[in-house]
């Protein structure tokens, strides 16, 4: 790996920066060379993309903070309208370099206003001699806003005639951003996924103070050996590492093994990790109370329903997954002979469960209900309100939002297992 080198910054700072961003040296040095020296104009817009937890946000933040470059950092999910976003950028700009705490509220409704206010702000904050960086995290949200926002940000340098660079961070590729009308093409930079070696290095770096680096690295090695096949998400692995570490340490704490006794430690942790494999990603057990509370969320799948709601749900399930023409055969006492025809066979080949639920009208649901309930059911308001409450519980869903009087149609959204549990 090449050491970071740049004439504009002192070597000590660069060395510190390098220690903070393990396994991302090449990307950082690329960025540094694009940025150039402080006063030099840089590329107008840079687009950085990469998979979840590949360090985009973290690298940008550390880079700008360690080198103390003037910057504005906004998350586009948080500022969900263009007005909020632009105002937030201006607000941060105000407090960016000025020591005065006082930030007055700015009103900015359009991008035109933004450009005007931005110019003023840059002049007043005396930032003209340095490049200003605007980082937009989760930039895919920009596509949801007005059509002019994204293209305008891409050529902000040109529009404002100031030394500014816009950095977009996203998990999706640039091709999905490009508007129909065309726009200024940003410089795209890809952050590749971490390899297993990278993950090992990064995870081991974050060791708890009371244990040695080697001990923790050995633990991470074991952990990655088990989980790497199913999970490469750094965040999730970090979570798992924190979750299982105390278990790993148990023999050492009890004095049964020393830190170098890897074999013994492995024997101890192996069954535990195997068990944890089943719940990767589910976060069944919250990290805070994992050792206090013994059960996870999926243990509570059973739902208790009133008597007729159960039948309604079963009827809805039958109506959703059975074709209409079989109704007569299944629910009528004196149905005719079952005719074996070719077209029936053709359909039966694909399981209805693979096709998903089909919508059905209300009267079909009620007709099936009447035939599956043993005693007579009066069509009271209680029955109808139960259908509605099943819809609010998301066990049924209403298809199409036309007038209620026009024969509403429903779909059953529960799984076969759920229905089995209900029918029991």
């Amino acid at each position: 790996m090449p050491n970071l080198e740049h004439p504009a910054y002192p070597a000590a700072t660069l060395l510190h920066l390098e220690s903070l961003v393990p396994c991302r040296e090449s990307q950082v040095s690329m960025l540094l060379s694009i940025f150039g020296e402080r006063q030099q104009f840089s590329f107008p817009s840079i687009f950085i993309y990469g998979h979840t937890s590949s360090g985009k946000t973290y690298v940008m933040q550390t880079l700008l903070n360690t080198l103390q470059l003037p910057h504005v950092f906004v998350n586009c999910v948080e500022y969900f309208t263009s007005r909020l976003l632009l105002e937030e950028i201006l607000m941060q700009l105000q407090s960016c370099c000025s020591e005065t705490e006082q930030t007055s509220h700015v009103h900015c409704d359009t991008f035109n206003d933004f450009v005007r206010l931005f110019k003023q702000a840059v002049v007043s904050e005396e930032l003209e001699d340095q490049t200003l960086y605007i980082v937009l995290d989760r930039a895919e949200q920009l596509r949801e806003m007005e059509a002019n926002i994204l293209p305008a940000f891409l050529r902000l340098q040109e529009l404002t005639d100031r030394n500014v660079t816009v950095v977009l961070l996203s998990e999706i590729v640039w091709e999905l951003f490009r508007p129909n009308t065309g726009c200024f093409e940003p410089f795209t930079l890809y952050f590749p996924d971490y390899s297993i070696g990278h993950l090992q290095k990064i995870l081991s770096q974050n060791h708890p103070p009371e244990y040695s680096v080697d001990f923790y690295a050995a633990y991470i090695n074991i952990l990655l050996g088990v989980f790497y096949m199913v999970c490469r998400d750094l965040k999730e692995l970090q979570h798992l590492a924190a979750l299982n570490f105390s278990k790993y340490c148990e023999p050492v704490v009890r004095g049964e093994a020393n830190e170098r006794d890897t074999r013994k430690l492995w024997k101890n942790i192996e069954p535990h990790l195997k068990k944890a494999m089943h719940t990767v990603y589910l976060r069944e057990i919250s990290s805070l109370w994992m050792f206090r509370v013994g059960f996870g969320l999926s243990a509570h799948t059973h739902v208790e329903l009133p008597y007729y709601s159960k039948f309604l749900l079963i009827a809805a399930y039958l109506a959703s997954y059975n074709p209409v023409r079989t109704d007569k055969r299944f629910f009528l006492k004196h149905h005719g002979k079952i005719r074996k025809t070719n077209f029936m066979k053709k359909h039966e080949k694909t399981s209805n469960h693979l096709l998903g639920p089909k919508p059905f009208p209300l009267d079909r649901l009620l007709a099936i209900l009447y035939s599956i309930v043993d005693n007579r059911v009066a069509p009271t308001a209680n029955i109808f309100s139960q259908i509605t409450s099943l819809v609010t519980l998301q066990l049924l869903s209403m298809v199409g939002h036309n007038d209620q009087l026009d024969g509403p149609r429903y779909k059953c959204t529960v799984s076969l297992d759920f229905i089995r549990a209900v029918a029991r």
Partner: protein
Amino acid sequence: ATVYLPLKVLSPPVFSHLSIFLHMHILEDLNKQLFDNLVSFLRRSHSEFQEKTTEWTCRMKSKEIPTAALVLGVNVTDHDLTFRSLSEVLQNNITPYIAFLEAKDCPGVKKLMQKLMGQLMNCYVDVDSSEDEDYVQVSHNRIRCSMTSLINWYESVTKKTDSETPSKKRTSSSRHWQSPPVVVVFKDMESFSTKVLQDFIVISSQHIHELPLVLIFGIATSPMIIHSLLPHSVSSLLCIELFQSLSCKDHLSTIIDKLLLRASFPFKLGEKVLQVLINIFLYHDFSVQNFVKGFQLCIVEHFCSQPVSVLCCQLVDAKKRADSLSHDQCENIRKLPSFRRYVESQVSEKQIALLTEDTYLKETTQKLLEDLHVYHENYLSVLRCLHVFTSFLPKYPLGKQIRELHCACLENQVWETEEYESSLQLARMLNKSDLVTMLQQCVEIFVSSSGKEFDNTVEKLKEFLTQFQKLEEAFQEQDVSVSSQKELQKKTDLYHLQKTLLELKESRRYKKLTKFEMLRFDVVDYIDSLVRNYLVPANHKTLHEIAYFNTASVLREHLNAAPRIALHTALNNPYRYLKNQELKSDEGSISNKAPDICIVYKLHLECGRLINLVDWLEAFSTVVMAAEGPNADAASSDQVDDIIHARFIRAVSELELLGFIKPSKQKTDHVARLTWGGC
């Protein structure tokens, strides 16, 4: 209907019981455990924020939002009550900053933030409304609906409490901490759109260090809904702990136990009425609140429709009131069927006296009221005692819950039913340890009961217990003697030994079992006698009409609304509602005196899925013209009168408005029929 009670009589004993006792105490008690757990959870989550520990494990989960998943059950109607008391509990113990969000108010993140900030900032104003004029003004202005402004608000609020005068500070910090958490409750998790939830969680996790946020998810179905609503990247930002509220069936049992099975509460439900209420609960909604409302309806109905309900109050008051009955009221009592039965069973002089002398009637009424009261007290104790027995039996022939047993006893003489017979059979096969624990429980019930007649019963039960004790001792003694015998006989030859041992064993088993069995029979017989004595159905008791509400049909009419049936009756048989003698006709035929819509409706009942409008009009005009005689018939045979045409169109569009038909695109000039039989 006339209320047979002056309001001042109604208010203290009955309604105070209901509104205050019921809503406040029972429901809070039931949720107490849940709320305690929640409060301690919030305390813990808060302490983590406060300390800002730099511990290794804490650093790893720095961005997780503490979240309580509150599984409340499918009875959505009850949730509001739970949330209301939850908010009270939290306000008193944890934090003044609580926001309740409902899915229907939050179609987007923006609306959600608006709602959230509105509630939080208003609640701030509510907490100490004295000196915050400036703040109210701010909230009237347009606030930027972003997390930053929320954080600024939080900082200003917490700072303010810091810098306040000591006296003020004490009052506020005695209840809350320096920086109380902000609790956001999602009332109906299932209905929220995933996008809104995801965005909100992502945003708030960014600021979790500046704003100590705690989320509470109100879940009606199962906690798995969290996984189906939130993708992993979002749910990994949460630190979820599960809380389960009491199941609604347990809830119902407690309410029945506290309300219906208490002698102190004068109003009682008859068997049919109770069955209606329980059925609605179990079959339809699981809603405890609706059960309580149904119960309240019963009370109102009872006092409005039953003249003798004047006497339905605490025994002391009832006696006083019986003393001051007017002549009319006495006549009302005489009209009661149960009272008539009572009169008939008396000797003739007494009969005359009861029917003619008011003073004598009043005396008798007082006596009978007392009897009724004593009956209730005894009934409940014996019922509980019987329930102890039946709840031990396999398969529960008389029901698992005490409410089922109660219904069975109210319905008719329980000892004549087959289920009772089979449960006695089963009880005769119980083992000793069960029997002893049951007897002990029964003793406890009788000792704590208010009835005075149970001294003997307690004595008798204790005697049984000591007998069991003795039996056990005897058993052990015999065991010892047998073993000594064995020792002696060891020296004889093998054949003899075997023989004697076998004999010994057989005799021992036979003898002992009979002894225990006899005792067991005695116990069961005794319980049986108690049941026969005390569990007489209430409607066999004289003057039971005073306390028992029995008209289930009224209740059913009010609670089991059947709009379809009502509509059908109105259209099919207009006389039912209009009470116009001309409309009184036999079923089947269509009268032309009926309103147009009724004629059209009846005609449409005879059609298939698609109705031809022309044929329909034809039929309609035939029916309408039928009365006009043969000459009119001839005139309009080929062409329909314009007025009739217009009437027909109006009637058809009325039917469409009511949802019976809709225009069809399948065939021109046809409409589709939408209703069939019961659906």
